[in-house]
């Protein structure tokens, strides 16, 4: 494993902020005037709008020509590393986004559909959604899926809502107001549980890398509404007692929700339903090859057993022979977590990706993710200053491993943020560190998945090694990184202070003026 480091430099365009661009009177887009017959019949727009409601001053938007608008945003795109490098962004399972499906999604048969169209006119979409629902059922053992949740967190929220409805139907909701999760669960689990009105109990990890059965037992009670847990967790550790967990929670009368965001390493190996879970979620923008868009549009496909079916949000697709219709949720349904059927075009992409992979491809992807992760681990542990989270736990990790650069930091004062600022100088995308709270110091969490070649993985390792070596030999080089990006690193000013933050140009103009005074 000796990857030569690339000479890399980001494109630098020194691009002004759009609010500073343009010239009064320039136009980027015309709308036609209303037709003569329309004008004659109706008059001008201002006649039609109550005068108190007419806009008084023009919005201060830039005035630019069409080519200039395009070029501006093209420049910005080039100034975005954006997975043009090697992105081993852990917990996000970077995937290949097949251009076939991205192109298809721009087709009017997907792009120009209104959600309230007559089902007659959406048979293609409905058939795909129905078939994909069946495919996810096969992958999870669940009986139903909804695609309404617009992200993984929204699926967690959906579960909290379903949990409310389930216990309410039993008259137990007032009593069952606690949701149990672990400190290694994604923050969205406790956050959505709270937003849904529950109290959250968070279990801490034991030496073996997951909370103990005893801790769980002392947390469950007649107040337990649900368990929300992921497995493996972001350290790559699979909790082998998970069936027992489910049993314990079920016994206490709670529901069990499997946050299957980390599905890539275990797909085709285990199924949530067979482990006893009542519900689970898959992130289609993650495991199923849908483009991430820098943070959505996304889909948290939420699946559940027959027992929870009536609580699902939104309209359900019903198959009648070759014809598909939509049925409103019944009186038990949680209603809506978002409007309509969800990010439909993303579901279609996920369906296509899954068809391209097939059962065999999915199994192989899981194998490769885990194989490559453990290969990486072996190599990374040779990097100076890097240790594995829970170093004493024996055995292979699943599809990702959390590491710590705590030693590097102690030895050199270089933080993991410095390290990632420096890594991008070699043309690799910044790695994921860890969700809050950091339970290992200076965490870093690469995940290779199945789309990165061994050469790319070797390159990534070589970059991390290089940067860590630099930290020892020339710590300022790393601390002042990046050096090859469009701009330098963010300055020390805290953006949590009202006088510093400026979420819009107009706020910035005002505050900068104030500061100058």
């Amino acid at each position, binding site marked *: 494993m000796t990857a030569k480091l690339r000479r890399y430099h980001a494109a630098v365009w020194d691009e002004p902020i759009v609010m500073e661009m343009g010239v009064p009177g320039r136009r980027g887009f015309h709308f036609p005037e209303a037709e003569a017959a329309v004008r004659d019949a109706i008059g001008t727009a201002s006649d*039609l709008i109550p005068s108190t409601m007419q806009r008084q001053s023009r919005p201060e938007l830039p005035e630019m020509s069409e080519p200039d608008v395009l070029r501006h945003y093209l420049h910005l795109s080039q100034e975005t590393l954006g997975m043009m490098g090697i992105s081993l962004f852990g917990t996000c399972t970077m995937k290949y986004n097949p251009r076939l499906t991205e192109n298809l999604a721009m087709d009017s048969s997907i792009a120009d559909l209104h959600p309230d169209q007559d089902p007659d006119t959406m048979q293609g979409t409905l058939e795909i959604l129905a078939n994909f629902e069946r495919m996810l059922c096969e992958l999870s053992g669940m009986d139903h899926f909804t695609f309404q949740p617009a992200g993984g967190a929204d699926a967690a929220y959906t579960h909290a809502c379903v949990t409310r409805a389930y216990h309410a139907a039993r008259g137990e909701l007032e009593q069952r107001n606690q949701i149990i999760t672990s400190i290694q669960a994604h923050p969205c689990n406790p956050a959505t549980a709270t937003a849904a009105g529950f109290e959250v109990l968070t279990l801490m990890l034991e030496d073996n890398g997951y909370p103990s059965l005893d801790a769980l037992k002392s947390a469950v009670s007649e107040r337990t509404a649900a368990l929300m847990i992921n497995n493996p967790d972001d350290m790559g550790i699979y909790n082998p007692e998970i069936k027992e967990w489910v049993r314990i929670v079920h016994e206490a009368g709670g529901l069990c929700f499997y946050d299957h965001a980390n599905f890539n390493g275990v797909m085709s190996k285990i199924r949530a339903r067979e482990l006893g879970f009542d519900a689970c979620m898959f992130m289609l923008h993650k495991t199923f090859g849908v483009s991430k868009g820098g943070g959505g549009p996304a889909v948290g496909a939420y699946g559940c057993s027959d027992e929870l079916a009536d609580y699902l949000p939104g309209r359900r697709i019903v198959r009648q022979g070759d014809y598909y219709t939509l049925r409103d949720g019944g009186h038990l349904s949680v209603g809506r977590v978002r409007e309509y059927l969800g990010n439909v075009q993303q579901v279609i992409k996920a369906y296509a990706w899954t068809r391209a992979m097939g059962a065999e491809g999915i199994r192989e992807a899981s194998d490769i993710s885990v194989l490559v992760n453990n290969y990486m681990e072996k190599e990374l542990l040779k990097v100076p200053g890097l240790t594995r989270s829970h170093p004493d736990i024996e055995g292979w990790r699943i599809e990702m491993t959390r590491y710590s650069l705590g030693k590097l930091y102690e030895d050199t004062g270089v933080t993991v943020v410095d390290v990632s600022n420096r890594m991008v100088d070699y043309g690799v995308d910044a790695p994921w560190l860890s969700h809050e709270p950091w339970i290992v110091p200076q965490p870093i969490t690469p995940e290779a998945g199945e789309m990165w070649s061994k050469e790319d993985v070797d390159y990534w390792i070589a970059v991390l090694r290089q940067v860590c070596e630099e930290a020892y030999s020339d710590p300022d080089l790393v601390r002042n990184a990046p050096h090859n990006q469009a701009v330098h690193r963010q300055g020390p000013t805290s953006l949590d202070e009202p006088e510093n933050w400026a979420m819009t140009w107009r706020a910035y103009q005002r505050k900068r003026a104030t500061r100058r005074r």
Partner: protein
Amino acid sequence: MPAHPRAHPFMPNSVPAIKAELMAALGIDSVDELFAQIPQDHRLDRPLELPPALTSEAALSRHMRSLLGRNRSCADNLSFLGGGCWHHYVPAVCDEIARRTEFLTPVWGTPSSDLGRNQAWFEFTSQLGELLDLELVALPVYSWGCAAGHAIRMASRLTDRRKILLPRYLDPERRAVIETYCEPAEMPSHLEIVEVNGDPETGRLSLDDLRTRLDGETAAIYFENPSYLGQIESDAAEIAALARRHGAETVVGVDPVSLGVLAPPAAYGADIVVGSIQPLGIHMYGGGGLGGFIASRDEPAYAHEYPALMVSIAETTHEEHIFSLALMHQCSYGSREAAKDWTGNSTYLYAIVAAAYMTLLGPEGFRELGSLIVQRSRYAASLLDGIDGITIRFRDGFFKEFVANFDDTGRTVAEINKTLLDRGIFGGIDLSARFPDLGQSALYCVTEVHEQQDLDRLAAALREVCTR
């Protein structure tokens, strides 16, 4: 199947020799060994049963196209559906930006390595801030309904009150989302929803009814402008003043494409403004094109209640501009269960697309767009109003949607829409189940995509359909 399994095009390491090399490095003979952590009785003991793999792109493409061929789109037909997702024209530049791989595929990097994307986000909030006349705009949330839900919860936290006023005529989809966000009655943090009637004459909010509902418990009044039924709430300033008098927050939902001609809610006293970004250059995608925004004055009290991510302009160590997330500690990434609601993957690609859209249009584009829509929708309403059996429910003061009532045709909207469908026309949303008091009514939506000839064609078709 070929004798030797072929490496999969998406998986560079699916070459047997590479897998062997990796296994050798680990000293294992089979990948199975790596799963030792997973107890045998957890394992699925059979291969997955999925439809056959289509690893050939040509085959997959054909399969997908044949499925999608069963769809009939609003582009190939004439659609008057709106109500929460709208057929506006999407400029080609927006598609070009949306498909740039640098924006399309990644998650996040550092503020320096993501300079361009973060700047585009800031340009989204900055331009939307200009349209809204507000200084604080967050990155978008999932949808308008979700934005409204969050904003209402913000208002409740800000006022420490739990009663929410909603207009009776509200999109049932959005309404259902809001209800979910308000939590069931059993929950200690439940928000009580109280409906404010619409004025049967104007379709607008009844001020009289509002006065009877507003009180010292009221956290917020939420209303939309234009309203779900399309009406411009000309009493908006009065509504906000009433709310303020009772210490309640005014939360307004607004259609951003109206803001070239309509006053921004901040101008009539809104405290928190929400709405959809879908009309800003994003395709409908069968409902997948939604995105919601939340905005307010830049006051710490408000800023501290946002659940969404917020991008701020900042400086680098070398005094260049850079763009980075502010107030991260209050979102769920930062504080888990102590967070303001939650956030996660949202609709950030659309923020970039909407930024490009707003730049393309500029102030004059928004003015032209708003004017054109108002004129064409009024023209459509006037045509329909002339048809025997059709009555326009609220004859003026609407923006792009209006209510057509078919009671006098003796036929249901469902029947009429089926007949229109045969003629390649998607009639307006059927309101009869949603709002029985409106009788057999449909919500017709007219935008800049409807040329006069389309409206004439609709009228001709309806004339035929209704008088048969």
